[in-house]
């Protein structure tokens, strides 16, 4: 049994009109990983996913999933994958249950088994009571969950989610994170693209950043975050600050009760807290000004 869930070698895609979307992507994702594929709009994420899933014809290169080659065994590759696309792509007038059972059928799952799995996943995703409703009547968040349930009915080993929580409220997003973490804990490989970088930071172990059709970073989230050479932290004070002086630190007073301090990699928070202590400033709370991964992401793609 291969240890690699997805192997991409020298993948190129040029759209008509000589528009280059992918310029030689190489990527290897291990079985059981929770992997983030990050990139700005138009960077090539959806094209890459489209090629893997069989929705986009590649120009050249090789893709294999669980050791099966996309060119030689497209049906095996497709059987291994469950796709949750970015855009809603189900028939709006079909009932929820029918959408899921039909999708399972296209993968060779018998109707009886498909109905049983449909019940399992719809219950897990809180959609069971909507099973007879047409998809058109579902809210945006429900439609996203329907697409996740649909992608799981043939029990794929690799689940690819393209912006699964786009437009979903924070409460629902958290419950979807929890659901995805459970799937990953059960051994499924999950590949996620998202614009919510805190989502990638919370869920994923490894990450690749794609920019202008090339992989510009491919490492673990922990390794990537360790490279963050500075971060800006906002401190909220207990009482209004009359005067503050933090020698050695770059800081901005936001208002009389909060201050943003930029801490370089070699500087220590202890030093900063000592300075606050000396000036009788009591800190009530602190938070990162921006998400750490977001800062790195912006640094990386701006650098390119």
């Amino acid at each position, binding site marked *: 049994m291969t240890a690699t869930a997805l192997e991409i070698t020298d993948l190129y895609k040029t*759209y008509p009109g000589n528009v280059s979307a992918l310029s030689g992507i190489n990527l290897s994702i291990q079985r059981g990983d929770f992997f983030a594929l990050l990139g700005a709009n138009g960077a090539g994420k959806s094209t890459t996913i*489209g090629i893997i*899933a*069989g*929705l*986009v*014809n590649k120009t050249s290169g090789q893709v294999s999933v669980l050791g099966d080659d996309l060119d030689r065994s*497209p*049906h*095996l590759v*497709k*059987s291994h*994958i469950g*796709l949750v*696309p970015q*855009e*809603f*792509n*189900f*028939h*709006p007038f*079909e009932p929820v249950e*029918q959408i899921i*059972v*039909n*999708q399972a*059928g*296209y*993968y*060779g*799952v*018998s*109707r009886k088994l498909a109905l049983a799995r449909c019940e399992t996943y719809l219950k897990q995703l809180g959609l069971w009571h909507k099973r007879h409703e047409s998809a058109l009547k579902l809210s945006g968040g429900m439609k996203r969950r329907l697409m996740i349930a*649909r992608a799981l009915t043939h029990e794929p080993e690799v689940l690819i989610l393209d912006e699964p929580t786009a437009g979903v409220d924070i409460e629902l997003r958290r419950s979807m994170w929890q659901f995805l973490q459970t799937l990953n804990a059960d051994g499924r490989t999950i590949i996620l693209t998202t614009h919510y970088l805190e989502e990638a930071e919370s869920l994923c172990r490894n990450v690749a950043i794609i920019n202008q059709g090339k992989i510009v970073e491919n490492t673990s989230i922990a390794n990537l975050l360790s490279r963050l050479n500075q971060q800006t932290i906002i401190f909220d004070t207990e009482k209004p600050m009359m005067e503050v002086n933090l020698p050695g630190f770059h800081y901005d007073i936001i208002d009389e009760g909060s201050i943003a301090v930029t801490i370089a990699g070699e500087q220590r928070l202890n030093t900063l807290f000592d300075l606050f202590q000396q000036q009788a400033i009591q800190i009530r709370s602190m938070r990162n000004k921006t998400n750490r991964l977001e800062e790195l992401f912006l640094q990386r793609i701006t650098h390119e």
Partner: protein
Amino acid sequence: MNNCQIQWIAFLTLARKEVSRIFRIWPQTLLPPVITMSLYFTIFGQFIGSRVGDMRAVPYVQYIAPGLIMMAVINNAYMNVSSSFFGAKFSKSVEELLISPATTSVIMLGYLAGGVVRSCMIGLIVYVIALIFVHVPISHPWLMLLVVLLTSISFSLAGLFNAVFAKKFDDISIIPTFVLTPLTYLGGVFVSVHNLSPTWQLISKANPILYIVDAFRFSMLGISDINIKFAIALLIGLCAALYAMCWWLLYRGIGTRS
């Protein structure tokens, strides 16, 4: 589970979906041909037909019955597949099939199943309507079945071919309006080619629908203006050519994949 079983279940799933679609939207699929054909039989068969008299030694209403059945079969086979496949493209639900292990042939056969079931069902309904107006015998039942099947497969494939290239809903109504309807009207549905001038006879003989309608008329009434073996060969050739073209288009992802 081996690949054959997977493909068989995929086919059954798509075929069931396509057939249930026909019943789900029955006011669009089943009702219009019933009304249209009843009107054809009433006006052409009863009101005008009684003045026309016999055509090729049979009452006019009886003469036009096979042509009207075939007209309904052709239109419904074409419209069912073109609208269903284009609808799937439009809603992007065709991606459900494209990402699945279902082969190109299975996808095609699934859609064909819908086209064939609807067109045969409509053919049967129109036949029953015809029986209200006139006795329509079936002289060669097996030939009749063969012609209906080959015709519904051919025009289902033609509808699929149209839908592959269609980019908007208008694109799937252009062919039925500007090509299929004129060809059907000029394809010997209402008049025998023997009654036409030599020039029109020549033009009519270049129309493939003439052969289809006439082969079907022969299977029912036992009268024909053309060579039946040639008509069957033409239908088989049409099926094979359209199947090959549609298969190639879908396999290459033309109109479906970027």
